[in-house]
């Protein structure tokens, strides 16, 4: 059972197979703090991607020998649910998941003040419930929010987005068919405050000039994601604030009555 591949991925009017413009990101929906047990959590939908991220920590580290004497050890597990892709994926971690767990961890480490909590572990879990290309970027975006949700002090949020080349044209935020059928895909993670690229991968073929253009495009996408992340964080607390403010008004009303 294989998916039907669209005839062309981009038509003559530069409209992509899912109706988007070349530099248009997919629809994003973010919710912060949705899991009860985790110290911090976030859920993201990016197009058809559905990804959950959660943090436990800082907490005691097991096994003990993994403890770092001068900082918290960030441990990350990126995992795809068997039903997340077209052809069922075995639950056992694949080599791809191993590699992604590593690069995702390395993308988030520069953002946390790990040196404040020596000898502890900060455990990050990313579960891909449904995948449609760009899961590592969406995963990083959610993971960074869950770290902030856990109250772990950070230098900045890490925002991630991919750009690439499909049928000769440079595009932003490739979905699965574009990634598989395109010329190049470049996922990128970025911390705007420090102008820091913390994740950079690319597969495909790009001339030196195209490489720079695609990277710049991905950076712009990351900046957009950063705004969405901030809004999602504030949205969670605005509700609390508004409820509290209402009570304050009621309180004042009662006082004057």
């Amino acid at each position, binding site marked *: 059972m294989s998916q039907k591949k669209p005839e062309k991925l981009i038509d003559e009017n530069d409209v992509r197979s899912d109706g988007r413009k070349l530099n248009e990101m997919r629809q994003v929906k973010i919710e912060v703090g949705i899991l009860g047990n985790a110290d911090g959590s976030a859920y993201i939908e990016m197009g058809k991607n559905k990804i959950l991220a959660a943090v436990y920590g800082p907490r005691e580290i097991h096994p003990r020998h993994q403890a770092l004497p001068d900082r918290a050890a960030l441990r990350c597990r990126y995992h795809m649910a068997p039903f997340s892709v077209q052809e069922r994926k075995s639950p056992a971690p694949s080599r791809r998941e191993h590699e992604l767990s590593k690069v995702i961890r390395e993308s988030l480490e520069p953002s946390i003040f790990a040196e404040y909590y020596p000898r502890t572990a900060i455990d990050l879990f990313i579960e891909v419930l449904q995948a449609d290309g760009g899961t590592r970027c969406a995963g990083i975006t959610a993971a960074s929010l869950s770290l902030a949700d856990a109250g772990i*002090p950070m230098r900045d949020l890490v925002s991630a987005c991919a750009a690439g080349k499909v049928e000769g044209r440079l595009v932003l935020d490739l979905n699965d068919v574009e990634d598989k059928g395109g010329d190049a895909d470049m996922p990128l993670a970025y911390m705007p405050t420090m102008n820091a690229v913390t994740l950079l991968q690319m597969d495909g073929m790009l001339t030196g000039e195209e490489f720079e253009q695609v990277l710049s495009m991905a950076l712009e996408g990351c900046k957009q994601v950063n705004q969405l992340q901030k809004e999602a964080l504030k949205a969670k607390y605005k509700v609390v604030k508004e409820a509290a403010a209402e009570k304050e008004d009621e309180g004042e009303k009662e006082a004057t009555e």
Partner: protein
Amino acid sequence: MPVFYENRQLVTPGDLLAENEYINGENTYKENGKIYATRVGLFVAEDKRIHVVALKAFYIPMVGDTVIGKVLEVTLGGWVTDIRAPYLAMLRASDALERPFKPQKDDLPSLFDVGDIMVAKIVAYDRTRDPLLTVLERGLGKVSRGQIIEITSTKIPRVIGKQGSMIGMIKEETGCQITIGQNGRIIISGKSPEDERLAIMAIRKIEQEAHMSGLTDRVTEMLRKEKGEKSKKEVVENVSKET
């Protein structure tokens, strides 16, 4: 000398709060003369000092703090205790017994067993080792009655109030004994479950509205209202019993 936010505005990690001659306080960091937030919270600027009131943070042990702990494990020399922090704490036998510890004679589980709750003080803590506790001072030791609740540790100062005004008022209004741990745990022991429930309600209200002013008055009012309604209910019940 720009400041980019107003007091009580919500900020997120990485937000640029101020530049140049400001001093950075809690939940911020300074780099190249610029001050940024490290946590989600409310921006506060007082004189030249900028800090963020974090909406979520976890307890970090400090020497001298009174904490409420739960025994997780009895070991050869003491008790491994959970104090709701990134680090487990240790209560050594020598910090629980007034005389020297004799392994053959002294049975540690009879003093504190797994699951027991204690009020303890942090006597030692630094970056290289887990916090050490003691129960050898007045007011410390095993807790045998009451209810425990947990709140965000950053709200504890609000529960205590200026010079203990808030907690003092709650104790008076509810008649409960209340022990506060800096690690966000509070033990409430009252004459009846109803009294304890009132105290818990008050503390939850403080947790929700910690960042708003006039809180002490509002909590007092709420408690009185609850108590008033309770006694009204009792009168009604008594009346209906009589008829």
